[in-house]
């Protein structure tokens, strides 16, 4: 499988467009959460553009990555709070 030829930003926009019906059927508050998740993906647009997996899979990986970073940051903050109460 070859590299994606579309520029990464267009690639992400295309995948997001495919999610239109999915987003519509969500409750508004859930839709806003998902939008924030999708926004975090843009930081990794170069990696998504260069990846060999399907673009949507790459987007999911980028989301996971952002979530894991947040989890680790929260853990660290929690540890810090325990050490210096």
């Amino acid at each position, binding site marked *: 499988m070859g590299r994606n030829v579309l520029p990464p930003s267009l690639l992400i926009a295309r995948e997001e467009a495919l999610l239109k019906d999915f987003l519509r*059927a969500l*409750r*508004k508050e859930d839709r806003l959460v998902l939008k924030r998740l999708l926004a975090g993906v843009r930081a990794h647009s170069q990696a998504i553009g260069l990846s060999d997996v399907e673009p949507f899979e790459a987007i999911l990986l980028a989301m996971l990555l952002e979530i894991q970073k947040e989890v680790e940051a929260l853990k660290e903050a929690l540890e810090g709070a325990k050490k210096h109460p």
Partner: protein
Amino acid sequence: MKSGFLLDAHETPKGIGLWLALDDGSRPRLERAFSPGFALENEGRKTRRAVAILQGRFGKDIRVVEGKGNDLLKGEVPLFEIKAKDPWTFERLKAQALRSDLFEGLCVYGVDTPAVSQFFLKTGMFPFCRFAFKDGELRVCDEPLALDYPFPSLRVLEVSLEPEGLDPMHARRAFALCLRPLGEEEGLVLEACDKEGIESSLRRFDPDVILAPFGDGYTLKRLLALGVRTLSREGFHARLGEDQTIASYGKVYARKGPVLLSGRLHIDPRNSFFYPEVGLAGLIELSRACAIPLQELARTTPGRAITRLEARLAGQLGFLVPFQKGVPEGFKTLETFLRLDKGGLSFRPLVGFFENVAEYDFASMYPSIIVNFNLSYETLNCGHPSCQTRLPVSGYGVCSKRTGIVPFTLKRLIERRETLKARAALESDPRQRQALEQRQKALKWLLVVSFGYLGYRNAKFGRIEAHEATTAIGRELLLFAKEIAEARGFKLLHALTDALWVQKEGAQERAYVELEHEIIRRVNAAFKPVLPDGVPWKVRLEGVYAWVRFLASKAYGVGVGNRYVGVFQDRTIKARGILLRRSDTPPLIREFQEQALQLLAGVSSIEGLRRQYSTLQGLTKAYEARLEEGKVRPEALAVRLRLARNPLDYQKRSFLAEAAQSLLAEGLGVSLGETVRFVRVQDKALRANPLWLYHDNPKPIDTAYYAGLLQEALEELLPQSLLKEKALP
């Protein structure tokens, strides 16, 4: 000149027998010669071969005419019309042709249209039609869908069993008969074997309608066997049908073989879907509209009734009524299938208690979609070059030249029902109002099933794509309404097929009414009918709940669409999917939950609910005490379940199987589709004791089981967990 209405019509060896109810009180019978028939599309050699075979077998008993007819899909087609010389020959002809492969690959019309229906179509008569009568000639001055017709004056006699309320098929005892003219207090009680007494009473009352609970399964069959001559107005003439099992919406029902009388109309309320639902006024409404004789209608299903109405209207519009449909389902690709076949839209509700929640309902959503988007088996991808309209979501083409037969029918039903509802609301006379309510409810049943039949492949005017297009548009409508609500700052709690539950903190009733108006306005602007003669979309604010609880599914613990209970601000209760709504719940438990819910109906907040907990606990204790003291009648403890298979086919030991098998062991017949009532008792060998055996041989009640059900009923309304939750900050 005399006048009156048509009481009944039935097939005879030579034609159609008509029972007239004249306004002078007499009930004469007429007979008209009639040749029913059917038609085959002339497709050349193969059709000619089939016709030649029929002519060989039936000779002069049939007549074949070449002609033309109007096919709903193909337009004008050449035909062979085959006329039988009388209804009995028609029956033989039909039976032979359907049993062989004679019709294989042929396009057949009207072979399943009963002779009486054909007679009605040809003569313009229909059940309960008004007519003028002179020199043996009938002149009909009435129309099946006329809105105002005088309620026919009928003499109604109730023939019930004494003692009442027992199922004679399962009770081992003798019954007396009670004959009571409807509306009178006093009845006449006769020994069930008093042939002369029963005969002379029937002669004296001379009823037009005999209302006999268990009439089909027991009473009338017994009376016929006894030799009672006056049941029919014509000696021994009665038509007997066979017992049946009917499958409908995943359930199996047992239907007793009907006893149809001649000159009188026999209704068995225990063997009728419609009668308990819509009464005599509803039956007459449907009997007229669908042109189905009343005795048959009382024993039919809403699905069959609407199919007959559609067929009647198709015939009246000059179309041939198809028997086998030649529509392939192949044009649907896998991709469109995956996009469409999702059924109605259903959100998982947010589980828990909520205050100040509004519910909005689309009135008759699916029938309105069918009408406004002209969805019928003959209108999808019609192929007319000028029809370019595409349906939303599915993208199927739809006819914009001609109204389909299903939308044509449903539009009339929707509008008729609206009118009757509006009149009922204005009517001050309680009896008139009840009749109007029964009539509109009868029409409602046809509308409720219309959508299911649209997608049923074997339904005459059904086609799966029309069904899918309907659900797809339905989801779109509900999402559209949800988006309007969310854009206005309302929070979506729950959405299910055609209803929406939303909440906004501090919102007053006015805000909810404004939202209703906005949804109506925008839906009507955005979803324009394909043809000019659509029906307006109606969205109604069902009410604002003071509090509502969405319950989790018992099995999975997540919210499910159809389990909720709440109280509107005007204190009316609405409950779905909880114990009191289930038909298998023992009456005692239902009574308890209803009583408990009544206590909560006056409560207007979640905090108020918490304060009621100890009251409800007290109520539970009182019921438990009644159980312990053995003060509860066994009927109130009976679990009622329907047999989904024959009693001996149950592999696993279940309470229902146990009860049914013990009935068999006692020599009491019970089979597939029948309901069995049993009491849970403390006995290892037989834990589920059928009610009929319990009376002869009572055992100690399984009080732990019933106490558990009481707890469950309490938990459904007011769970203990609600007490632990702190009030929201």
